[in-house]
């Protein structure tokens, strides 16, 4: 079907390929639907010929549907309102200092979220560094290299990776990954890369490195599935043209496919980042839960999500609770920005075609 597409404008067919639902509501695909229905004007004309009496149930139905749509909006507003309302106390008390203060001291009611912000950022970035090349590699392998028969199996396996609950990743991390890291990987890293200072100190197995690796395993499916989708949307004759110029397969993939798909891939990466930032259980089980800022990746850390998970039910004082909710608010705002950015990027590829017709 892709050879009927205008080769001069490779980004356009993104908006044309209907795809099956996958576990992630993917951005490229979602925009594909927006151009779907065209001739609603004719329908309105037909409907206007109906007798007035039949419009009453129609109106009732319309309002029920509108109410359920508004409920989505209301829930998000409610989330924001509750977070702001419950964190007011700590917002007033600490102001901006909350975000760069280092001490987390429930006994003296003094709170600074720096170690948690640091832990969240470092573990997520580490996950991205590990996951991005792997996911692009998998997507390239699946779309461009592997035999047709293997393709559906591999994408099914990768999809399955997305369906495993994070608590099971955590369980596996504690009993399989952490001992593996402690006994083999960390000594090796300390010996070969110890001079960088990133891999030093005692090796517990549990720590920033373990959290980063488990997060990477968890976000690979997100990034890989979007990359794969964007890559399959690149028209076939684009590939043929580059090959005809004498390119090798890798040059064809680099110049013909990846270059055209790059914005979509960046969108996928950002979406993966959003996932990693908010991930709670697996990280809580693996990061070691100690509010410290340490240069070594072997050292235990703490993230924003895991401090909420660990301390929320035990928080006794109002100020303590309020500080925890403020961390939740910060987490919400950051993931909101990250997701909006991913969405805008994809809107920018699909460009004018993505605008609704009405």
């Amino acid at each position, binding site marked *: 079907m892709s050879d009927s597409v205008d080769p001069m404008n490779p980004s356009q067919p993104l908006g044309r390929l*209907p795809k099956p639902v996958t576990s992630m509501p993917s951005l490229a695909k979602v925009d594909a639907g927006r151009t779907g229905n065209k001739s609603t004007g004719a329908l309105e004309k037909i409907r206007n010929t109906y007798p007035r009496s039949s419009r009453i149930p129609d109106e009732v139905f319309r309002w029920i549907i509108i109410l359920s749509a508004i409920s989505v909006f209301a829930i998000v507003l409610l989330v924001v309102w*509750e977070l702001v309302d419950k964190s007011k106390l700590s917002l007033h008390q600490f102001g901006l200092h909350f975000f760069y203060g280092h001490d987390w001291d429930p006994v003296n009611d003094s709170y600074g979220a720096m170690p948690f912000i640091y832990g969240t950022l470092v573990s997520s970035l580490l996950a991205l560094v590990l996951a991005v090349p*792997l996911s692009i590699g998998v997507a390239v392998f699946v779309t461009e290299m592997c035999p047709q028969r293997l393709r559906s199996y591999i994408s099914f396996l990768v999809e399955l990776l997305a369906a495993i609950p994070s608590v099971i990743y955590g369980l596996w991390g504690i*009993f399989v990954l952490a001992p593996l890291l402690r006994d083999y990987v960390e000594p090796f890293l300390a010996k070969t890369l110890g001079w960088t200072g990133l891999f030093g100190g005692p090796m517990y197995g549990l720590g920033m490195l373990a959290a980063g690796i488990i997060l990477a395993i968890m976000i690979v499916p997100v990034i890989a599935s979007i990359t794969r989708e964007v890559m399959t949307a690149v028209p076939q004759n684009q590939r043929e043209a580059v090959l005809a110029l004498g390119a090798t397969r890798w040059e064809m993939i680099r110049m013909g496919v990846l270059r055209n798909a790059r914005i979509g891939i960046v969108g996928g990466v950002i979406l993966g980042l959003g996932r990693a*930032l908010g991930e*709670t259980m697996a990280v809580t089980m693996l990061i070691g839960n100690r509010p410290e800022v340490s240069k070594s990746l072997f050292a235990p850390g703490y993230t924003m999500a895991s401090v909420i998970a660990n301390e929320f039910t035990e928080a006794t004082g109002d100020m303590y609770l309020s500080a925890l909710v403020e961390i939740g608010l910060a987490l919400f705002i950051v993931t909101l920005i990250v997701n909006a950015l991913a969405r805008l990027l994809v809107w920018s590829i699909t460009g004018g075609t993505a605008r609704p017709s009405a």
Partner: protein
Amino acid sequence: MPASTSQKVSLWRRLTDWGATGFAVLAAILVIVPLLAIFVYLVIKGIGSVNISFLTQTPKPPGELGGGMANGIVGTGLILAVASVIGIPLGIGSGIYLAEYGRNRFGDLIRFTADVLNGVPSIVVGITVYSLIVIRQKHFSAFSGGVALGIMMIPTVARATEEMLLMVPNVIREAAYGLGIPKWRTTLSISLRTASAGVITGCMLAFARVAGETAPLLFTAFGNQFWNLKLNQPTAALSLQVYTYAISPYDDWHKQAWAGSLILIVLIVGAVAAVRITTSRGRLKGA
């Protein structure tokens, strides 16, 4: 004829080509190995601990051997039932709005909000439900856990419904209107029915996604060592129990955590496999 081009490719270009191929294969292997490792460990470690008493008994106090997660399995079912009752109708409703009415600014706003809601970290949903319901009721409950998970189901169900409804050809709607069928009836009995396979798929995916959620249940359903079938009481859930047992220092509990995970993953993979079967049978071919 440039028959000899393939021989003229320089060594460097050939090497990078091989390198890239090698890297892609390596990446595929590196991604699939942890998945297989997780499954193998789950089966090996879990299957030894799944037995009749695990499936029928409640947890024993720490230090005593035996006991099971029967209350957790029932609790998960209870919470998921509440979640589905909340999440599926609201999700399908908003999906219908987006597809049939929402071709305008307000529709875009709802679409964007649904994406935002989809990206909200689950723990933040937990905090919100905690302050909305648990604080007001003054105790943890299965109901609040269900509300939290239901909220997380809405965006997935809504977007799947929208996508599937948009694939229904407009000709079908026009035909229905031509017969004088009102819009609500057309939407429900014709559009939605045509799209039903895809909508069900979306619902099951949302279900599978929240079935293993733990973070929002920590301070809503809270967990319980005993049987509970009441909606307004703290309730055990499989995922919560796996978490508590995994970070405990007892060997017997570790074994039970593996068994609990195995049960959980069997439930979820079962749902995903069912999804694959329904989609391969009844997927709508493009509009």
